[in-house]
C-alpha cells in the first residue's frame, strides 16, 4: 500500500476506542435527554405523586452526574457528545 493509503487505514487502537466511546456516550446522552424531556412532560401533566416526582428527579440527577464521571474518565468533553447528521443537523442540541 502507498504511504498515504496506509496512513488512512492504519487505525490507532486508542483513537478508535476513543471514537467508539464518544459514540456510545453520545447515545447514552441522547437517551438521558429524552428521558429528561419525558419526565418533565409527565411532571407538568400532573399525573405523578410528589414521591414519584422526587424519585424521577433523583434518578435523572444521578444519571447526569454519572455521565459527567464517564466523560471525565474517558477524557471526553461534554460538547463533543454529538453526532453530525448532515442535512438533518446534529443529533443532540448543541451546547
Amino acid at each position: 500500500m502507498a504511504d498515504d493509503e496506509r496512513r488512512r487505514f492504519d487505525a490507532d487502537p486508542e483513537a478508535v476506542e476513543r471514537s467508539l466511546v464518544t459514540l456510545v456516550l453520545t447515545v447514552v446522552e441522547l437517551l438521558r435527554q429524552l428521558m429528561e424531556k419525558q419526565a418533565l412532560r409527565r411532571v407538568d401533566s400532573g399525573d405523578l405523586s410528589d414521591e414519584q416526582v422526587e424519585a424521577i428527579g433523583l434518578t435523572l440527577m444521578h444519571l447526569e452526574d454519572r455521565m459527567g464521571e464517564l466523560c471525565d474518565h474517558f477524557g471526553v468533553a461534554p460538547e463533543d457528545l454529538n453526532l453530525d447528521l448532515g442535512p438533518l443537523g446534529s443529533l443532540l442540541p448543541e451546547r
Partner: protein
Amino acid sequence: MSEPVPAHLADRQIALVDLLDRVLAGGVVVTGNITLSIADVDLVHISLRALLSSVSALRPADG
C-alpha cells in the same frame, strides 16, 4: 507579459469550512457524457469520513 499573481489573494483568512460550502455546493455543475468525472461530493459523507480518518490517522510530529 502579465506579472505573476500571488497564489493566495488578499489578506483574507479563508476558513476551510466556508470554502467547502462554496466549492462543493456552488459553482456551475456540468454533467453529461462529455465530462470525464464530476465528483458530486456529499459534505456529510466527507465530514464523517474525514473525521474518522483524521481521528485514526497517525500524524508524525514533524508534519
